[in-house]
């Protein structure tokens, strides 16, 4: 067999997978977003009316707002915490192997189970408020019933679960940095902060961008913890974008409209990731 055909033969399963699991669903979704397609009803081409309806839909804007605020806050905190812990545990710290292992435990927890677990922990009469009572608090926060608090409560749960991910990636990157540069900097009398600013951070930047990209896309499409903890309430204060798309798809059965919502989401994420990757073009840090 000719070498080119052999290569295609070996590539065929992967190509088939990409087509079946990525390309076909993508183009199908884009296609149905231009139809009024309701399960059990008639399908009709509607010239993109779904997109016009979407921009006038208050729940779409609410979902974008909730998901956006959530993503920015939790990813920032996870990054800072993960970086700090990675820097700390990359050095000579007693018990660092045990500490590293403990840091990874939240990664193995099932998100929906974590959601239900924290439902009990943050219950009005749960352990958190009991502890606050011991500290002398009289008026307990309504962690999951106060619209001004609930999103941050869910954010706390996400930070607990995903800081480990940041920690793991950044720790691996830190440990692969060349030691000689730090020895040279040490000889030149560079301070710790100067070493971080001029050596560590610039060398970590590509890894940081990858880690942020992964976490931002993941956080923006989060669903499971919100279902377990709040179901979008109180009101719609924690109804993230993916939750609304789920409702439109599986409660309203409006597949055409949910296709439009999904395409809008895709476009937003593409823009966001491209903005993030503009940082790679920075030549001077």
């Amino acid at each position: 067999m000719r070498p080119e055909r052999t290569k295609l033969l070996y590539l065929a399963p992967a190509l088939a997978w990409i087509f079946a699991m990525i390309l076909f669903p993508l183009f199908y979704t884009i296609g149905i977003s231009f139809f009024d397609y309701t399960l059990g009803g008639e399908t009709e081409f509607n010239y993109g009316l779904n997109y016009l309806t979407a921009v006038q839909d208050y729940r779409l804007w609410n979902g974008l707002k909730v998901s956006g605020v959530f993503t920015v806050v939790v990813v920032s905190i996870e990054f800072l915490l993960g970086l700090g812990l990675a820097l700390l545990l990359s050095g000579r710290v007693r018990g660092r192997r045990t500490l590293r292992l403990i840091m990874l435990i939240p990664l193995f927890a099932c998100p929906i189970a974590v959601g239900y677990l924290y439902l009990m922990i943050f219950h009005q009469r749960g352990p958190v408020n009991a502890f606050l009572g011991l500290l002398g608090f009289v008026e307990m926060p309504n962690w999951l019933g106060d619209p001004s608090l609930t999103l941050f409560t869910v954010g706390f749960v996400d930070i607990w679960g995903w800081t480990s991910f940041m920690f793991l990636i950044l720790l691996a990157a830190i440990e692969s940095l060349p030691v000689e540069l730090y020895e040279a900097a040490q000889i030149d009398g560079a301070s710790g902060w100067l070493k971080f600013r001029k050596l560590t951070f610039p060398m970590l930047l590509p890894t940081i961008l990858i880690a942020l990209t992964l976490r931002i896309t993941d956080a923006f499409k989060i669903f499971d913890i919100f279902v377990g903890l709040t179901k979008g309430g109180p009101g719609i204060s924690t109804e993230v974008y993916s939750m609304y798309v789920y409702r439109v798809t599986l409660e309203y059965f409006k597949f055409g409209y949910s296709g439009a919502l999904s395409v809008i989401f895709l476009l937003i994420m593409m823009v966001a990731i491209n903005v993030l990757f503009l940082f790679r073009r920075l030549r001077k840090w």
Partner: protein
Amino acid sequence: MNTLSSEKGRMDRRRFVTYLGAGAIVVAAAAAGGYYAGQRPPTVTPTTTAVAPTTVTVVGPTAPTWAPTTFEGYKNLYDVPVPMPYPYKAPPGTNITIAVLAAGTRGVISGPIYYMRDSWSAMTGATVTAVDIAFSDLFTKFFTDVVTGAGKFDAFITGGNWYGDLIKGGYIVPITDYLGPDFHTMKTVSRSTNTGNNHVQWYPPGTESDLRHEELLKWGKDWYGCAMDQDGIMFYYRKDVVNNEDNKKKFEKEYGYTYEMDVNKPNNDIWWDNQMADILQFYNNVHDLPFRGNPPVQYASSISFARGFLSWMYWIVLAGVMNVIPGPTVDRYHNMFFWDPETMEPTINNEGCVKSLEFYVDKIIPTAPKEAMGWLLGESFDGMLSGNAAFSWNFGDIGRMASDPSTSKIKGKVGVRLMPGAMNIYDREKGQWSKLDTPNYVANIMGCSWHGVISKFSKNPEACYDFFSYIAYPYNHFRLKAKGWSGYDPGRKFDFLPPNGTADVQAYVYEGWDEGDAKAYMEGVWECYYAPKTYQIFPRIPGMRRFEETMDVRIAMAAAGTSSPKDSLDGLAKDWNAIIDDIGRTDMIKAFQTDVGYGKPYTKGIPWA
């Protein structure tokens, strides 16, 4: 040439990969074959034997003992699975798969399915597979199954509110053919013989359901379900606390008037605006109460505000008394709610509804604990059953569960009455408020009123009907309703105590009820359903799931304070108009008018009164 090695006896890379791929394909094929072979359903063999009836002989529908009227009659039947000859035999290997609410083998609505299936299997030779599904996924799973034609389920335990979509698409089959002629009167036949099979007679004289709940089993002239659960929202109170004389004296001193909660005592009118609001506020100041009861009450109201499980109903029944006006017929302005039946224009944001939501947000919500913002239905039950709450308005489950020591700390302390009325009602026709001399009370059958319906894709529809008729069979049905865990609320003649019905209170005591609680509960439920001069319907039109979901969201926003009541209801009217236009306004007008019985005379709904 690519080779692993040029040494003699070693395999080259191409051959190695070829053998590896062939081996993988063989293993995969073997695994797939093994998997599908394992999926073949086992041969069904009933493992229990039918218990021969010993005490009851069927003598026909005119016999007075079709429903147990004495405790002795009930007790004798208690341990007999089916106290009559039962000739229906399913074809060999028949299995029916039923989708039920996920509440477990002794949980609400699903429990009776598990409880009854073994004895039914022993009689008929068929088996029942119950599939538990969470409430939030129920409609999705049903609808997807029938619309896609997957046909995984033979039958579903559905809420009556979902009929619109199921009927519109022709996804469920009527059971009219199995019922036989003269079904409702049952004067001449003892069993249906239309199909050549006999099924247990579940609706003879003396076992009637009230007409409004009966309507939920039908669409137009066709029947689709057998009686199972008969829901409504009742008003519960801690009678040891609320009837305490010291508390009442203090209330009178503070507010200048007194009240009477018990419906069997005189002057027992209660109305929301503002009497009930005052009473809730009084009992919310628990530390100032002379008597808090045992267990001591911690707050006034146990209702829930979380999204996802019918929380909007707590407001709807309040809005009903301020907006539904009685009249001799079901017309545009009388006995009507939700929509204008001529135009399907939502009336949910009229002045009366806005005022009721403002009342709810300002005066009612502050009397519930803060954590109720995140409560689902079970927690609102628990707030009352644990003794923490002085009041709750909720489904019939609380009354049934109050006597069960595993779930209740308030056995013997529960009062039940019809929902408070309103002294000011909004007249849509005149566009103004009317002040009344006596409260406007509104009956309601709010709730799912769960019952089984048969999928059009079922290969065993008759077996499904037979199982559901077996559950609805009076002896079995009464037994299940008397059990606290079943989730079946009263509504048939044999549920109520005399003079309203034919039950013996000792039958309830035998099942563990407190006698006083049982009497109060049955009297209160009766009052809830029949005492008022008008009622609030439960819409069953197409798209109902979408109407419910949008209402759930908007009311939750108002309850959480993220939107004003007026903005919430204006937004809701806009959402509903969009849904109606999407489905088709003309079709929706027709469906809604059929559903409410537009133009028909108003009926109190008691066929045996």
